């Protein structure tokens, strides 16, 4: 039945789904049992490289009036910021490295260079997004409450502008995530109070202002006469990081070939069905080892969604096993290069800015259920006014 099993897995029996769940559990167990010194060495190396690039980049930028220093410093800082948010921050906050019991690299102690405080982000991301992945009305990451990414989302005139505000979203991605975590859409719905939202805004601001001060006041001041060029360098590094992470993250769930699900799918969902939803709701990016690290291994979005707390350096080795499972059970394994996948995302955003889109993106002849108002994706106040 489509409403409970999706489209691509409709051919599987309950027993097959259970067997698939057991196979994926076994893949997970084989990795977890094998974790050891080499993994610990890997993450410590990434920390060392990241801190080195950050310290080196910022030191170079003290002389940012020299064009070569500006370019090299900005490049180093951009890479440092990307590593910090993606291969380190995102993955450590998932608890991928908690097994080491190292208070320096642990989901409960880690704070990242991001506008969203780690505690707040962990709730919205680790719990809501990873549990309810791609379930319309439950996974707020599906369009981030401001975009129409599946035809089942009711159209609204504000979406006409989404190809344009996607550019702004990309440039200011870290801020968008922080604001998104406050869940203004829920305040509007009435499921969250203004006081709660205000308290969270304060928490974000307390953290964000220290980071703004660091990047846009203190380091520029330290650069003396190079203050302006250091400021532009820091802003560029932040922009590079935002644009890059936005592209990688949008390629995780919104390219063509990825399925979204009806809320009914969650009812009595078995472990195997949960795995299948994660498989069908995610897409990988292909590339070399360095590319994978720079995406925080979110290029293995499928493996990450199946095993969110398995250390990211292991996704590459389990990907062929997961692919093999998909092949044997006749399930799609969505994957492509970054330009190709991002291209399909942009095309989708452009098409779905307009009403309809069922024919191209509906994916199945199944009837489109009307979303219940309370769980429907609502537009935040800003978008409504724009409309």
């Amino acid at each position: 039945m489509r409403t409970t099993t999706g489209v691509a897995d409709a051919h599987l029996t309950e027993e097959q789904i259970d067997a698939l769940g057991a196979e994926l559990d076994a893949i997970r167990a084989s990795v977890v049992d094998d974790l050891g010194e080499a993994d610990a060495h890997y993450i410590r190396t990434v920390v060392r490289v990241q801190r080195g690039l950050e310290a080196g980049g910022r030191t170079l930028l003290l002389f940012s009036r020299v064009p070569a220093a500006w370019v090299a410093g900005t490049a180093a800082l951009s890479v440092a910021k990307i590593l910090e948010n993606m291969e380190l921050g995102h993955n450590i906050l998932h608890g991928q490295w908690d097994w080491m019991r190292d208070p320096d690299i642990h989901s409960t102690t880690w704070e990242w260079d991001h506008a969203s405080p780690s505690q707040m982000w962990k709730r919205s991301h680790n719990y809501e997004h990873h549990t309810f992945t791609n379930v319309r009305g439950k996974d707020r990451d599906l369009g981030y409450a401001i975009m129409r990414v599946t035809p089942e989302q009711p159209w609204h005139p504000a979406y006409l502008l989404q190809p344009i505000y996607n550019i702004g979203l990309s440039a200011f991605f870290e801020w968008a995530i922080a604001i998104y975590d406050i869940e203004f859409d829920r305040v509007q719905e009435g499921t969250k109070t203004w006081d709660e939202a205000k308290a969270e805004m304060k928490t974000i601001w307390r953290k964000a202002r220290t980071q703004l001060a660091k990047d846009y006041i203190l380091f520029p001041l330290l650069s003396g006469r190079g203050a302006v060029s250091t400021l532009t360098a820091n802003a560029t590094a932040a922009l590079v990081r935002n644009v890059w992470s936005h592209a990688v993250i949008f390629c995780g769930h919104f390219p063509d070939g990825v399925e979204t699900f009806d809320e009914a799918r969650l009812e009595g969902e078995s472990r195997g069905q949960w795995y299948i939803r994660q498989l069908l709701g995610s897409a990988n990016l292909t590339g070399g080892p360095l590319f994978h690290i720079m995406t925080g291994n979110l290029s293995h979005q499928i493996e990450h969604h199946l095993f969110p707390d398995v250390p990211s350096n292991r996704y590459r080795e389990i990907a062929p096993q997961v692919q093999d499972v998909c092949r044997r059970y006749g399930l799609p394994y969505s994957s492509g290069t970054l330009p190709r996948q991002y291209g399909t995302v942009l095309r989708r955003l452009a098409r779905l800015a307009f009403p309809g889109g069922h024919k191209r993106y509906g994916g199945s002849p199944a009837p489109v259920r009307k979303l219940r108002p309370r769980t429907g994706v609502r537009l935040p106040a800003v978008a409504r006014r724009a409309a």
Partner: protein
Amino acid sequence: MAPLARRVIAAARALTTPLLPEDFVSVWRPLRSRRAPGARVVDVRRETTDATTLLLRPGTSLPVHQPGQFVGLGVQVDGVWTWRSYSITSRPGDPLLAVTVTAVPGGLVSTRLAHHTRPGTLVRISEPSGDFLLPAATPEKLLFVTAGSGITPVMGMLRTLAARNTAALDGAVHVHSDRTAADVVFGPELRTLAARTGMRLVERHTATQGRLRPDALTDLVPDWTARHTWACGPADMLDDLTDHWERVGDPTALHVERFRPPTWDDASGTGGRVTFATSGVTAEAGEGEPLMAAGEAAGALLPAGCRMGICHTCVGPLRSGAVRDLLTGDTHDTAGQPVRTCVSAPLGDVTIDL
């Protein structure tokens, strides 16, 4: 701290936010971390076939220890930071901190430390703790009863007394048991120290003489009831001594160091679901499994120290449910009651504020 230094630190913090300056420093100088203090193994001395003394230089200054106390040492075993406690055998104020590690058969950490540590190795270190101490005013008549690696905390005491209060050792008695003369850790040093200070050293070699029974003390140390006694060794020996002092001696004059991880064979907890409220982690504890072991297996980062119920680093307030203290056998079920997670096993479902 001088206002200028404080300002410099504040400025450095503003430049490294959301990290701390030490997060950068510790990447290149791992010993400088204050969140995870470390020490470098400067020298390694083989004491016997299975005991090794490690001479450590801590990266940040630790509080000065008192003789008889222990420190926790953390080493990475297969990538996992694993901690054990070891008695300090050096004197307070010595330039290097010495611990003596005896390899326990099958012991991951002790075997690695005793047999596979090279000078230059970095370990993590916790602050000295423990209440197996000599009082500020040294009692006139001392008795030490030790066996095997139980010599280590007493060695710290003896070395300190020999250097600072030699008179206290004159007339003291030390009864030490080990399999053979060659197995005695610090054997030659003990014998020299005894000859020099006037302490009477009674070595008992259990391979030939059998185990020391408390009754034998009457012959070995006729005035044992008049002495303050410090004892450390295997649990059986300490149990025997405690019984003996309770029956025929003054229990307050006996100080013991139970230096061993508790065993959960008696399965005195029923197990249950443990919720660590602050960490947001829920774990299933098996029968007799301590809260800490269950929590760590589920990925919680919990305060931890000796892991054997001695140091109280791991204490957290109980919010709901009941636990049994595996060392004392006591049941705790009052909300707000602080419990030692390393030796408390749940009796059903438990929530703790950690």
